[in-house]
C-alpha cells in the first residue's frame, strides 16, 4: 500500500454525556464485541496499510490498554506497525493537541520520516467497512489534492453535528460548512481524507505558522477554492457515535440481519483484541429475544431487543429490554432495565428499576461488588 494511516482518536464529545467520563469515544464498545477504533484499524489492516499512527489525547487509558498489543490487527510487523502518539512535552512544545491539525503537526516528524506517498486520515469514532485502495484510486483518477469521503444522509435527518458539503457535477467540493445550523445539503463528510503526504506536511506547517489548529475549518474549508478537493461518495454502511443517541442507534443497528451479516459474516472481518472468555451460558429462566450476547455472559432472565457486551451477569427474574449493557456488568435479581445504557464494570443491586422514559437513560452506579 502506498499510504500511511492516521487515526484521530483524541476526541471527546459532551453529547456522549456520562459515557465519555471513562474513555475516549474511540474506545467505546460497539456491536457486542468491538471497540469503536477496531473498525478504522481493521480497515487499515484489510487495505494493507502497514503503518498506522493513532493520535490520542482525551482519557486515553482505556484506549491505550486496548492498543497495548498491535497483533490483533496484524500490525506486529518489522515493516511499519502501529504507533500510538499521546501529546508529549518537548523542547519546543508544551501544548496539548490544540486541534486535529495540531495533533498531526506535533507529530510531523513521523510524517516526514515515512516514505509512502499518500496519507489516509480517519477518525476512531466511526463504524464502517471500506477498502481505502478504492478511494486512493479515485483520488489519483480525479487528480485531486484532497479527497474527502462523503455520505448522503437520509433526507430530513439533522446533519448539524457534521461537516456538510456540496459538490459540483465533477464531484469537486464547492461548499463545505462545519456543523451548520441550517443546511441545504444532506451530504456530509465521513471524516475520512486522502492526500499526498507532502501536501499534508505543507498544509500543516503553514497552518501552524498562522496559529490555526483545526484540520476541517483551518485547512479543508480555507483551501477549498485553492486546492482541488474532491468528494468520494461511499454507499456502504457508515455511522458515527459521537452522541448518546447515535451510539445507541449504531449498536441497535447490529440487531438488523443485513448489518449483522455485513460486519460479522462478510469478508473482510473486523478484528479486535481477543479476551479469553468462555462461551455465553444460559441457565434455567433465560428467555432471550432478538438480542446479541457476547462471550463470557451468564444469563438467568429475560432479555429482549438488547445487546449484552462481554462478561455480563444477569441474575434471576430480571427484565432487560431495549438496552445496551456494556462489559463486565453484574445485574442482581429482580432488576428491571428498559431503554438504558449501563456503563461498563457496573454493579446493579437486586430489586432495582431503571427505565429511560424520554430517550435513553445512562445507568452509572458506583456500587461495590462482592464476589464470592
Amino acid at each position, binding site marked *: 500500500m502506498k499510504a500511511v494511516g492516521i487515526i484521530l482518536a483524541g476526541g471527546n464529545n459532551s453529547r456522549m454525556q456520562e459515557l465519555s467520563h471513562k474513555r475516549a469515544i474511540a474506545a467505546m464498545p460497539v456491536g457486542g464485541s468491538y471497540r469503536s477504533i477496531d473498525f478504522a484499524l481493521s480497515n487499515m489492516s484489510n487495505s494493507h496499510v502497514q503503518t498506522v499512527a493513532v493520535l490520542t489525547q482525551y482519557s486515553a487509558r482505556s484506549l491505550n490498554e486496548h492498543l497495548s498489543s498491535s497483533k490483533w490487527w496484524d500490525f506486529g510487523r518489522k515493516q511499519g506497525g502501529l504507533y500510538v502518539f499521546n501529546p508529549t512535552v518537548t523542547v519546543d512544545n508544551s501544548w496539548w493537541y490544540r486541534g486535529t491539525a495540531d495533533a498531526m503537526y506535533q507529530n510531523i516528524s513521523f510524517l516526514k520520516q515515512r516514505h509512502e506517498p499518500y496519507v489516509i486520515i480517519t477518525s476512531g469514532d466511526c463504524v464502517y467497512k471500506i477498502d481505502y485502495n478504492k478511494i486512493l484510486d479515485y483520488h489519483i483518477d480525479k487528480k485531486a489534492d484532497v479527497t474527502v469521503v462523503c455520505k448522503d444522509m437520509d433526507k430530513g435527518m439533522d446533519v448539524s453535528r457534521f461537516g456538510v458539503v456540496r459538490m459540483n457535477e465533477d464531484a469537486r467540493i464547492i461548499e463545505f460548512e462545519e456543523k451548520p445550523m441550517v443546511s441545504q445539503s444532506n451530504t456530509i463528510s465521513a471524516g475520512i481524507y486522502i492526500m499526498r503526504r507532502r501536501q499534508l506536511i505543507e498544509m500543516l506547517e503553514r497552518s501552524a505558522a498562522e496559529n490555526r489548529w483545526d484540520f476541517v475549518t483551518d485547512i479543508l474549508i480555507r483551501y477549498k477554492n485553492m486546492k482541488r478537493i474532491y468528494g468520494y461518495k461511499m454507499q456502504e454502511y457508515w455511522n458515527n457515535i459521537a452522541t448518546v443517541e447515535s451510539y445507541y442507534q449504531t449498536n441497535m443497528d447490529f440487531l438488523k440481519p443485513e448489518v449483522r451479516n455485513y460486519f460479522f459474516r462478510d469478508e473482510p472481518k473486523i478484528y479486535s483484541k*481477543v479476551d479469553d472468555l468462555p462461551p455465553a451460558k444460559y441457565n434455567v429462566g433465560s428467555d432471550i*429475544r432478538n438480542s446479541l450476547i457476547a462471550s463470557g455472559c451468564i444469563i438467568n432472565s429475560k432479555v429482549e431487543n438488547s445487546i449484552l457486551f462481554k462478561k455480563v451477569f444477569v441474575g434471576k427474574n430480571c427484565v432487560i429490554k431495549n438496552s445496551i449493557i456494556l462489559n463486565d456488568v453484574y445485574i442482581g435479581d429482580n432488576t428491571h432495565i428498559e431503554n438504558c445504557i449501563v456503563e461498563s464494570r457496573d454493579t446493579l443491586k437486586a430489586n432495582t428499576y431503571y427505565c429511560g422514559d424520554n430517550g435513553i437513560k445512562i445507568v452509572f452506579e458506583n456500587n461495590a461488588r462482592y464476589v464470592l
Partner: protein
Amino acid sequence: MDVVRKEMIAMLLAGGQGSRLGVLTAKVAKPAVAFGGKYRIIDFPLSNCINSGIDTVGVLTQYQPLRLNSHIGIGIPWDLDRNSGGVSVLPPYERSVNSEWYTGTANAIFQNMDYMESYHPEYVLILSGDHIYKMDYEVMLDFHKENNADVTIATMPVPLEEAGRFGIVIADENKKIEEFEEKPEHPRSNLASMGIYIFSWDVLKEALFAMKDQSGCDFGKHIIPYCHEKGQRLFAYEYNGYWKDVGTLGSYWEANMELIHLIPEFNLYEEYWKIYTKSDIIEPQYLSADSVVERCIIGSGSEIYGEVYGCVIGAGVTIGKGTVVRDSIIMKDTRIGDNVVIDKSIIAENCRIGNNVTLGVGDEVPNKLNESVYSFGLVTVGEDSVIPDGVSVGKNTAISGVTEQADYPNGILASGEAIIKAGD
C-alpha cells in the same frame, strides 16, 4: 559460555488418533477435537503449562496433525511465543539411519532427545493431550523435589469399584510407590494413574536409552516398570480436582454436558486459572425473536432461530427456524436447517444438516459397524458431513461424509446403522 537452562520443560503427547471417538477423529487427532463450545482438548494441558509457569512445551504430533498445527501455530493464544523456549510442534522425522514413526509414548519422547537436551532441563513433565482438567504442575514439582523423587506420577482417587479400569498405584504412607497393577480385577488401592509424570532428567534419559530397542516403548508398560525395578524413588502425587478422560463418545458427551450445570464442577467462568484457546470468531451471538435457549452454552458468532435445550454449541453455528435441539453437542461453523429435530447427538465441525431432518429417534440398537464405539444412544456426525433434507436417523448411529437421499433407504437410517463416505 553459559547455556539455556529451563528448570522444567513439558512434553505433550498429542499424536494419538483416539479411535474410540469414531468419526470425530477421522480427520483430526484427538487433542484437536473441540470441547466446551470454544476450546479444543489440547487447550487444557497447554493452558495448565503456562499457568504453572512452564514456558517450554514440545507437542508431539503424528496422527492427522494439520488441525493441531494450525491451532497451535507459534503459541500466541497461550503466550507460548517466546524468544527462548515456547511451544514447538515435534512430528516424527527422517534421519540418516533408523527412521521410524513414533511407535509408543516413550519412543516418541526418545526420538526427541535432542530437543530436550537443548534446554538442559532438570525435570521433564510428560503430559497427554486427551484430558480435561486444571492442574498446577508447579505444585506437583514441589512434591517431586520435597521427596527427592526420581519419578512422580500424578494419581487421583477413584471409586474402588471402578478402579479395575485404571492403572492402579499402591503407595506407602509417605506416598512412595510400592507396586503397580494394570487394570486389576481386585484392586488393592484406589489411586489411579493419570498418565502425567515428572521425571528427573538424568533418570528419564537413562531409562529411555536403556529401553530404546523395546518395540512400542510405552511409559506405563515399559519405562515406569523399568525405573521401579531399578529401585528408583517413585512417588504418587495425589490430585483431587476435576479430571475427566474424554476417550469415549459417552464420556466426551458427558463431560460437555456437565459444563451446562448451574454451577459446574469444572468451571470455565472463574478468573483464576483461565483456559486459553485460538479464537478466530469473536463477534457476539444472535438469538432471534423466536428463539428459545435454556441450559446451554453457546459460542461466539452463532445464530439461533430455533429452540435449544441442554446443549453445548460452538462458534459460528446456525440453528434454523422451528428446529429443536436437545442434549447435543454442535461444533463450530455447523449449519442446521429449519424444522429439524435433534436429540442426543454429537455433530462435528462444519456440517450441513438439511431441513426437516430428524436425528436420534427410535430404540437403542447396538451399532453394526463398531458396537463399542457408537453406543450410549448417540448420533455421531463427523466433520464436513452433509445430511440431506427430510431424512430420519436412529440412535447409536454414525454418519461421515457428504450423504445423499439415496444413502437413506426410505429416508431412514435405522438405529445401529452407519454411513461412512469420507475418511481413508
